[in-house]
C-alpha cells in the first residue's frame, strides 16, 4: 500500500486542471454558432485538450510523476498557442502568473516526495562542471544541433541569400558551428573520462 501523503496544493491544482479542461469545453459548446467555418476543427482541438487535461489531472491525483511533468511542459505550450490563436492579452498574463505559482507548488519538496521524486543527496562530481554533467558537453550538443540545422538548410537551400550576402553563409557558418561543437564535446568528454578514472581506480582497490 502506497502511504505517500498527497499535499493539499497538489489536490487543488489537479482538480483545477480537470475542472478547467471540462469547463473550457462546456463553454465552447455554448459558443458553437459564433465559431464560423472552422467550428469543426476548433471543437476537435478543444476535445483533445480536455481529454489530455483530465488524464493529466487524474495522474497527478494518483501521484504519477509523468502527470506532473506533462502539466509543467504542456501548460506553457498551451498558453503560447492560445496567445497566437486569439491575440496575446491580459488573460494570458494572468494564465502565465497562475502557471508559475503552480510550478512552484508542484516542485516543493513535499510535492516531489508525493510524486516519488524526493531529494536524496546526489554525488557531485568534482569535474570541470562542479554540478552535474560537464557544461562543455551541453554547449557542444547545442551547437552541434544548431550547426547541423544551419548546414543542412544551407545545403538544401543554397540560393537563400540576404540582400547583401553573396555566398551560402548558412552552410559556411554552420560548419564553423559544427567545428566549435566538436571541440567542446571533445574537451567535455575527455574531462569526464579523466574524472572517472580515479574513481574507478578507487573502486578496484576497494
Amino acid at each position, binding site marked *: 500500500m502506497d502511504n505517500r501523503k498527497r499535499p493539499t496544493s497538489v489536490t487543488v491544482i489537479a482538480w483545477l486542471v480537470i475542472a478547467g479542461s471540462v469547463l473550457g469545453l462546456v463553454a465552447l459548446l455554448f459558443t458553437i454558432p459564433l465559431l464560423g467555418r472552422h467550428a469543426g476543427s476548433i471543437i476537435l482541438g478543444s476535445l483533445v485538450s480536455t481529454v489530455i487535461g483530465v488524464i493529466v489531472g487524474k495522474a497527478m491525483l494518483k501521484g504519477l510523476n509523468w502527470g506532473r511533468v506533462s502539466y509543467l511542459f504542456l501548460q506553457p505550450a498551451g498558453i503560447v498557442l492560445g496567445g497566437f490563436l486569439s491575440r496575446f492579452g491580459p488573460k494570458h498574463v494572468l494564465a502565465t502568473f497562475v502557471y508559475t505559482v503552480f*510550478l512552484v507548488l508542484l*516542485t516543493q519538496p513535499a510535492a516531489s516526495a508525493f510524486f516519488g521524486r524526493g531529494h536524496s543527496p546526489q554525488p557531485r562530481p568534482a569535474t570541470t562542471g*562542479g554540478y552535474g554533467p560537464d557544461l562543455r558537453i551541453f554547449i557542444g550538443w547545442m551547437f552541434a544541433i544548431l550547426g547541423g540545422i544551419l548546414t543542412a538548410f544551407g545545403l538544401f537551400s543554397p540560393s537563400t541569400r540576404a540582400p547583401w550576402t553573396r555566398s551560402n553563409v548558412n552552410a559556411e*557558418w554552420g560548419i564553423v558551428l559544427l567545428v566549435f561543437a566538436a571541440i567542446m564535446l571533445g574537451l567535455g568528454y575527455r574531462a569526464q573520462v579523466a574524472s572517472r578514472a580515479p574513481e574507478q581506480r578507487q573502486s578496484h582497490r576497494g
Partner: protein
Amino acid sequence: MRLAPVDYSIILVYFAFVLTIGWMLKKYMLTSTDFFLSGRRIPSWITGLAFLSANLGALEMMGMAASGAKYGMLTSHFYWVGAIPAMVFVGVWMMPFYYGSRARSVPEYLRLRFDEKTRGLNALSFAVMTVLMSGINMYAMAVVFRVFLGWPIHASILVSAVVVLIYTYLGGLTSSIYNEVLQFFLIVLGFAPLTIMGLRHIGGWEGLVARLNNPGMVSSWRVLADSSSNSMGVNWFAMVMGLGFVLSFGYWCTDFLVVQRAMAARDMTAAQMTPIIAAFPKSLFPFLIIVPGMIGIALMPDIATSSSGYNEALPRMLQQFYPSGLLGLGITALLASFMSGMAGNVTAFNTVFTYDIYQSYIRPKRSDEHYLAVGQWVTLLGVWMSVGTAYIVMQFNNLMDYMQLLFSFFNAPLFATFLLGMFWKRATATGAFFGLVAGIGAAMAHHLLNTRHVLHYASDMAANFYGAMAAWTTCFIVTIIISAMTPAPKEADLRGLVYALSDKPPSVALPLYRRPLFWGVIVLAFVTWMNIKFW
C-alpha cells in the same frame, strides 16, 4: 523582417537547452548555499564567462551598437578605458576581501566591514533597482521584437519571463551561471558573422574609414582634446575620471549582479581569476558590437533619421546580412543576451532579498530549508515584479530614463565607500553611512542643477560623467571627515576585511603564469595597445 520556420526551429532548440539545464540541476539544489552561491564550487572559466554574460543585457547589446553608429570608436572607451581596468582591479585587489570574508553578498560585506545600517541601505536600494532594471530590459527587448519582427509585446514578455523563471527557479544561481555561459557563446557566434561579412562587404577597415569619411568616428583619443571636438561632448578628463574611474569601477567592482558570479567560484584564486578571465573576451567586444554599428551607419546613413534612431543599427544590419537560418541564430543571440541579463538580475535579487532583507529583518534564525524555499518563492516574485515593471514602463515611457538615472546615483558613491572600506582601516561605520548618503545626495543635487540649467554641459553623457565624479568625490571626502571625527573601529573586527589586516591571497605563492596579476597585466597591455592603435 520575417522569420522562416528554420529560424523558429533554432530558437526552439535554444529554449529546449536552457530549460533542460535548469531541470537537470534541480536535484543538486539541496541547501540555500547550493541555490544562492552554487555551493562555491564552480570553476573559474565558467564563472568568468558568466561574469561577462550577466552584463550583456538587451540594453547593452542594442545600446552599444547604437553608440557605435553614433559616436564611432569613442564608444570603445566603455571597454578599453572603463570595463577592463575595473575588472582587473576587482579581481586582483578587491576579490580577496569579498571572497575571503565569506560574505554571501556585497551588502553582507558592508555589514561585516561597517554596520547594519550601511548594509540595509545598500541591500534595499540594490533589490529595488535590480528588479526594476530587469523589467526595463524586458520591456526594451519586447519593443525591439515588436518593431522589427512584429511579435506581440505580451508574447515576448511572457515567453522570455517564463523561460527565465523556470530555469532560475529550478537550478538557482548555478542554472543562471551555466546558461549565461551558453548564452555567451551564442552571442559571440551569433554576432561574429555580422562583423566578418560587414567588413568584407565594405572593403575592410580601410573601406570603413573611407566610407565614414569622418576622422572623429574612427579615432578614440585624438578627438578628446576638448569637448567641442567630438560628438559625445566630453574631454579626456571627463572620459578618464568620469567613465574610466568612477562609473566603470563603481559598476564592475561593487555591483552584486556581477560580483555574485565570482563569489560562486570554488576557491580564492578562481574567484580572483573570474573577472580577469571575463576581461579577455570583453576586450574584444568592441569588434563584435561597436564595429557592426559603425558599418551600419556607413552603409545606411538614413539610420540616423529613422523612427528608432541609432537603435536600428543592429537590427538593420541583421536584416541586410543574415538570410533565413543565420537570421534565426542572430535573433536567438539577441534573445540570449536579454535572458542572460534578466536571469542575472533575478538571481542577484533573490540572494540579496533572502539573505540581506528577509533573514536579517523579517525572519532571522530559521532553518536552511526555510531560506531555500523563500529563495525559490522570491525568484517567482522577482520575475513577476519585473513583468509588472515592464508593463508600468509601457504606460510611462520616460520612467525608463528616470530609473537608469536613479541607478547611476547609487553606484558611483558606493565605489568610494568600498575603496575606503577595503584600503583604509580607519574608515568607520558612521563615516561610511553618511558618506554614502551624502554621495547619493550630491548625485541628485547635480542632476537637479543640470536640469534647471544652472550647470551647462555639451551633452547628457558629459553631465552623467561629471555627476558621477561629484557623487564619488562627495562620498569620499565626507566619509574621511566623519571617520576622522568618530572612534576608530577595533582592529580585531577588521581582520580579513581590510588590506592592512589581511593575509596575502594564496595566489601569490603560485607560479607566475597562474597568478591573477600576471593575466591582469597581459589584458591591460592588450587594451593599452588597442588604445594606441585607435588613437
